[in-house]
């Protein structure tokens, strides 16, 4: 009998798969208590490293053309589709869900990448404006990414909730560090393998596994993070308070649905800044 080769589930930072700097892991078991994996338990230093990676990747990613970002998001959908069975299996292993339920979740995740991919070059057409000012000026408002986004993926969903947290942030050019569901971390790291093979530049998405509770205050109080999505946090009020220190943009839990095959333009816009440019008209 052949022994199968098991995967080591590590973090995803700056396009690489390091173990936690702290050397810590936590054990993941199935519903019957059987060992599944020792998952990396991220530390404060890992949070800092992820912020550095996200900040470093920002200028390249926000400077890429919208067409390019759209193609890369679509490529993620392609890669995910190709590994559909693996994701279904992993979700079932962690949750004990039925084949139909797990399949639906993976399909929604794939389709949501496609939905988001199509937005990259349409945001400004819909949400920007030419402003008819009362003077000799050309005046235009466009939307630009907010910068580095920290996010807590929903706890109850291993894959689609994570996708609907990452995609609205990166489609516009933000970079993101996301804390995966603590109970359901496997899909997050397998998703990282998908991202890594989709031409997504390293550092655009950084995935941390571990305790959202422990990591929360370090993300919320980090001064080089521009926005925070508190969807999967169990202490959103406390983290919103810490986020006020550098006036992070805050998405409170429950505002946007995260289970579907599509998202919300308003969610994308919440992680963007309106920039208005004035230029004189004359000879």
């Amino acid at each position, binding site marked *: 009998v052949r022994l199968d080769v098991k995967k080591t589930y590590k973090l995803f930072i700056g396009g690489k798969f390091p173990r936690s700097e702290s050397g810590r892991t936590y054990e993941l078991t199935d519903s019957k208590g059987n060992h599944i994996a020792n998952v990396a338990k991220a530390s404060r230093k890992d949070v800092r490293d992820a912020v550095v990676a996200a900040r470093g990747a920002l200028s390249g990613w926000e400077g890429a053309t919208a067409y390019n970002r759209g193609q890369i998001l679509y490529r993620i959908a392609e890669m995910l589709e190709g590994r559909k069975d693996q994701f279904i299996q992993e979700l079932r292993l962690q949750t004990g869900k039925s084949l139909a339920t797990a399949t639906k979740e993976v399909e929604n995740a794939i389709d949501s990448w496609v939905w988001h991919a199509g937005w990259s070059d349409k945001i400004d057409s819909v949400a920007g*404006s030419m402003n008819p*000012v009362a003077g000799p000026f050309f005046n235009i408002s466009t939307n630009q990414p907010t*910068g580095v986004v920290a996010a807590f993926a929903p706890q109850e969903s291993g894959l689609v909730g994570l996708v609907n947290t990452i995609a609205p942030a990166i489609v516009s050019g933000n970079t993101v560090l996301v804390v995966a569901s603590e109970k359901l971390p496997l899909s997050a790291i397998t998703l990282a393998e998908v991202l890594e093979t989709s031409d997504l530049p390293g550092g655009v998405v950084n995935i941390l596994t571990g305790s959202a509770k422990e990591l929360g205050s370090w993300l919320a109080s980090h001064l080089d993070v521009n926005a925070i999505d508190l969807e999967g946090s169990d202490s*959103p009020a406390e983290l919103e308070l810490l*986020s*006020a220190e550098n*006036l992070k943009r805050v998405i409170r839990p429950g505002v946007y649905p995260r289970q579907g095959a599509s998202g919300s333009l308003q969610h994308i816009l919440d992680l963007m800044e309106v920039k*208005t*440019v004035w230029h004189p008209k004359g000879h």
Partner: protein
Amino acid sequence: MFEYSPAPESKSIVKFQDSYGHYIAGKFVKSSKKYETINPATEETLALIGHAGAKEIDLAVRAARNAYEKTWSKLTGAQRGKYLYRIARIIQERARELAVAETLNNGKPIKETRDFDIPTVAAWFFYYAGWADKLDYAGLGPNPKAHGVAAQIIPWNFPLMMLAWKIAPALAAGNTVVLKPAESTPLTALMFAEICEQAELPAGVVNIVTGFGDTGSALVNHSGIDKVAFTGSTEVGRIIAKQIAGSKKKATLELGGKAANIVFDDAPIDQAIEGVVNGIFFNQGHVCCAGSRLLLQESIQDEFLKKLKRRMETLRVGDPMDKNTDVGAINSETQLRKIDKLVKQGVKEGGTAWSPQCKLPRNGFWYVPTIITGVSPANTVAREEIFGPVLSVMTFRTPAEAVTKANNTPYGLSAGIWTEKGSRILKLADQLNAGVVWANSFNQFDPTSPFGGFKESGYGREGGRHGLLAYLKGGAK
């Protein structure tokens, strides 16, 4: 330099009451506590003003809630719009009176209140009046809804204009408001209450409470409000963000800035000089988006500074009521001390301060327009908002260095670019982390044009369709 004869505007068009209460539910309610509001150019008392406590705030919020539920939310958008059009027209009719009142209470030149502040106030109401019956086109899908009661706290630098930026979109979207003007400049807001009366606006739709920081804090903390809109310092913005953390209250914050005004060697120099002067000395530099950091391309530094100093020598500083005055009074003694302290710090850290010779009035609060050269990006005067007529000068060599220096600040409200090269403007405009970028211009404002900051300059936009969104939530979901 030419000598100018005095050309004072008359005060007689304005009659302040001796004492004002709070405007709540369509009536002026007496205040138990009072303070004096002054003319910062003369230090004379203009009127006694109420200092609202928790009790008055509660009355005002209840009045706004009542008006929202019983009256304002029952009107059609077209009806709300008509009230706003009426207000816009009354402001135009009473423009001269409002301009004089604003100058007396704020200290800014009559030239500015007459030609900029008050016309902009009227334009803001006129613009948002037209949105009231077109909310389906705001971008949130059909049938968007108002938040309910908006708490609005405004600063002293553009008192009535900030009121207009807050109240016009709030009412157009269907909210009712409780507005607190700044403690040092309450008078035009109280006159606005009379304008609401003349427009027959239903009682409680607009409530004006006056007071200090404790008044604002009580308003933000009141459980009956749905939305906070604040313009002021980043320090207070932070406090407000903390106060509403974990609640359902929405916020828009328009906070401080430390804008870079970037001048390239190919810029139209004379225009750039005018733009730099306007950028920092307009309204005594009491402007959150003021171009307070001048970034000069190294090769033109000497020529530019020589011309800038010559231009500054022609600025007329003094009586704000004089129609020729360019730079008026500093709004308060507190602010004057803060400016003075920061400039001294700048010199201590190695900068060289220069100001033109100026004869200043004996009473009142004054600060002569000042530039500080030899500033390095780590210096206090390159980092902290001075909020006065003080320009910190730095240099750069390449466009990339200009962008790095411009973005090297926790603020992100505005920026200026001076160059004849269109492609350079567009590239820099993309790279600058600022909510408003002025190319070959500065300090332009319009009700159709969104205004607001990146990073610690706050969140949300005021003006245009985007400004309307801050007062709406999605309808059908």
